[in-house]
């Protein structure tokens, strides 16, 4: 009896030990292959510009797409992209030789994942003629990027019944050799969980599928609605206010203590708040590592604070620009180079499209600020007030910030100097060949149509009215003024 008990006891002990060992091994594997963080390779942080383009902000934790799923989706579902070219069809800036487009970050958290950083919407490409390689300019408006197309693509893929473990695994097996553990993880966890998460986005992103709203098109996003629906979780309303991606160089020019505000309607108090809120938008969740996140925001604040605007790449007629400078002083400086710059101008005075204003409200600001405070993050934050105008813009690097007005409804500077009725009614956004005559990107013609997305100013939120300052100048004065603007 005692013997048997002892033998049984020993057996029990061994069993327990085995269970513990297996659990420990299983736990280690789960941690190692599912959650263990590896730093990005050194080349990512080799220069400040590389870090801005490819450095992780931590978005891979919650918003990240598992690398191999990200890799095979364009091959499996090319028909869900706006054209041929895989992710390149979305106009994302993509440097030759790079594994991922600018603004896409690869980080291994258990398994390689792809997230985004600021650069995806804030890197421009331009060419001085069609037959040449593009120049990449960081912190510029990402005028080619089709953000809405990217959101839709991922959701549309997840909704397709062909998005299942069998099909994805067979595509993945064509391009890489995963070991047994990774294969099992992908098949039983990563693929089903990714599908579920992407499908959840469908409800959150309901408004990007609305038939009564036009497409954002390349280079625009409905930024305040994104914030409203994701950060404050408010129910969908009927507002729609897509705006151009802004340039984010030289952010130190915004002096909060001099009554300046940031974002098109002055929605935010200062650059630090805008960077933090935008980064939180990319993370899609509270930061997994708070201190690391704060360090990233501080670095971006420092880097973007001092980064200068890029120089105009064509020859400038200096004499003409001098004449233009006088025209500018008389007609433009009052708002764009004065104490008014960076401060809100009432809508009644500026007269541009009001939809962007309507897409945000005081209540949303209050809730959003609380959400961020509850994460334990400190910043001055969003302006808790009813806003009724647009900020008078600083014009540094204005040449690369086409199309113009907050909603990108006017293709070139020269067009902006025409009365609203005579500005182009339909044009194409997102082609990166520059037009030094009209000063903006080429927005008409076959190539612009092929590459770009159509903008019709009669569509909701895309009105090109208002800001008719300078439209009564003589043509020679307009030309001179535009020449001067190239120097900024």
């Amino acid at each position, binding site marked *: 009896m005692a013997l048997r008990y002892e033998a049984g006891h020993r057996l029990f002990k061994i069993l327990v030990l085995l269970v513990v060992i297996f659990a420990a091994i299983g736990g280690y594997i789960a941690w190692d292959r599912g959650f263990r963080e590896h730093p990005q390779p050194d080349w990512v942080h080799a220069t400040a510009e590389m870090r801005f383009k490819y450095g992780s902000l931590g978005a891979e934790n919650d918003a990240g797409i598992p690398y191999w799923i990200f890799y095979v989706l364009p*091959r499996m579902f*090319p028909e869900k992209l706006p054209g*041929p070219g*895989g992710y390149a069809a979305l106009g994302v800036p993509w440097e*030759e030789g790079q*594994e991922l487009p600018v603004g896409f970050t690869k980080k291994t958290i258990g398994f390689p994942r792809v997230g985004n950083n600021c650069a995806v919407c804030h890197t421009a490409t331009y060419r001085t003629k069609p037959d040449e390689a*593009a120049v990449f300019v960081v912190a510029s408006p990402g005028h080619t990027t089709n953000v809405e197309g990217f959101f839709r693509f991922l959701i549309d893929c997840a909704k397709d019944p062909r998005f299942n473990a069998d099909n994805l695994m067979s595509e993945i097996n064509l391009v890489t050799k995963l070991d047994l553990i990774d294969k099992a993880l992908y098949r039983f966890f990563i693929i089903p969980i990714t599908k579920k998460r992407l499908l959840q986005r469908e409800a959150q992103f309901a408004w990007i599928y609305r038939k009564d709203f036009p497409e954002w098109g390349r280079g625009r996003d409905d930024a305040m609605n994104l914030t409203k629906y994701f950060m404050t979780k408010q129910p969908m309303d009927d507002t729609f206010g897509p705006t151009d991606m802004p340039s984010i160089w030289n952010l130190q020019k915004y002096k909060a203590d001099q009554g300046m505000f940031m974002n098109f309607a002055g929605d935010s108090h200062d650059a630090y708040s805008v960077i933090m809120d935008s980064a939180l938008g990319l993370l899609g969740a509270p930061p997994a590592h708070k201190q690391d996140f704060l360090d990233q925001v501080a670095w971006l604040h420092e880097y973007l604070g001092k980064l200068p605007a890029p120089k105009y790449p064509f020859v400038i007629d200096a004499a003409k620009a001098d004449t233009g400078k006088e025209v500018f002083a008389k007609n433009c400086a009052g708002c764009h180079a004065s104490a008014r710059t960076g401060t809100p101008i009432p809508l009644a005075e500026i007269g541009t499209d009001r939809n962007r204003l309507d897409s945000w409200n005081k209540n949303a600001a209050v809730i959003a600020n609380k959400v961020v405070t509850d994460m334990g993050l400190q910043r001055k934050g969003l302006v808790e007030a009813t806003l009724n105008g647009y900020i008078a813009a600083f014009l540094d690097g204005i040449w690369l910030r086409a199309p113009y007005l907050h909603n990108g409804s006017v293709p070139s500077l020269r067009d902006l100097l025409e009365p609203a009725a005579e500005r182009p009614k339909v044009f194409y956004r997102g082609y990166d060949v520059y037009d030094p005559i009209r000063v903006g990107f080429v927005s008409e013609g076959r190539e612009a149509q092929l590459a770009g997305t159509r903008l019709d100013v009669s569509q909701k939120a895309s009105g090109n009215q208002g800001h008719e300052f300078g439209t009564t100048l003589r043509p020679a004065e307009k030309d001179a003024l535009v020449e001067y603007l190239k120097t900024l």
Partner: protein
Amino acid sequence: MNEFSDAQPTSRWRRRFFVLLLLVVVPLAVIGLYLLQRFGGDTPVDYASNEEHFKYGSTGGEHEMGFPYWIWRALPQVCPEHLPGPGYESVGMIFEPGKDVPVGTSKRRYQGVDRVFLNCAVCHTSTVRTDKSKAPIVVTGMPANNFDIMAFQKFFFACAADSRFRKEYVMAEIDRLGANLDLLDREVVYPIAIAIMRERVLTLAGRFDWIYREPNWGPGRVDTFNSAKVIFNFPMDVLPPKELAAPADFPSIWNQKPRQGMSLHWDGNNSLVEERNKSAAFGTGTTPPTIDTGRIKRVEDWLLEAKPPKYPFPIDATLSAKGGAVYKQYCAGCHGASGSDFSGTYVGKVTPIDEIATDRRRLDSYTTELAVNQSTLYAGYPWRFTHFRKTFGYANMPLDGLWLRAPYLHNGSVPTLRDLLERVDARPKVFYRGNDLYDPVRVGFVSNVPDEDGRHYFEFDTKVEGNANVGHTYGTELGADDKAALVEFLKTF
């Protein structure tokens, strides 16, 4: 008490149990071992000499794309009307004596099936006849001037879509070939293989449906980079029209060592030999997990030093020396000092399209969108592609073995060297490609013969999209004597 009486039945049952176990386990183990031995291996056919390895060795493409050996053998008889003539010879493949498969195909036994697929030599080996009465000589590394890869592809696509591509028809032809398949192959392996192959070829046919919208490439040419778009499953039906109809000549591939770092491919879109090689190997059916890097490296190493054969006709030394001076003045800067010395200011660099002014469709077929997608190839491997770049012109090539590289220009639109030295309007507007008989007078292959012994050569019309014979007008204003001298000198390359 009970102990004793219990013990006996227990041990008897135990014995019975073991016997039963043996009866079940042993046969299962034997069957298992047999199946493992039969279906477990992965054995390519290897060759001792490097040149044989180039012609018949494996790149690893049979893993993913390999056609089961006997199906490969049977198909020309199953679907004869989808070929221009009898057998694979009719699309320009070369059969050497004693070989059961043509040059440019390799064999590998994988998952219990002998498989056949293409290797580098299919597009980079051809034949030359120095006289109508002489037998053709096989030359490795030269452009496969007679291989019609479009007809080859269309044959498989059409045959897979044909109602006869099923086991009844295919097995009958396999039997007729004397395959003597055993029961397992006949009843299980081959029926499954036929079904799988049909499905795969039809999938491929869907992805390659754009080739039916392109003018015939004819022998010796391929639309390289539209084919590359298929790797990414680009929706080819919505490609901008200017990207399509971009056939290019197969290049010669000797002397790769001095080419390292030069702008490779006709438009110079890559500068790393190994990466260019792996890119080309996609055409032999390889995928990143299944490529046979060791055997590709063997080809790669051999090509570093491989040399073109010497010009087989007499060369007038005096005339050639005179031509050398002309060459030095007009050509050497872009094309190198000689056929073996590739030094020169502009050698291996891209000349802008406005300056070279040759047909631009091949240039336009390669896009920035494709280049960036190519940099995702071999992701996760140390040799991920990083060197593809969109260019805006065509690359200046070294001219080693130039005599074998006719027709000339990237699209093979000018039949002979002598024609290339004529003004554009005096170059032949229509000529015939695919003849391996050499013309030592004009220096190129015979191009004015539409057919010979029942064999029809490809009518090349320079008016067709992608076929323009314009541009590269260097040397066209030289006097007739200088042109003759220059051509004589080029024979020494």
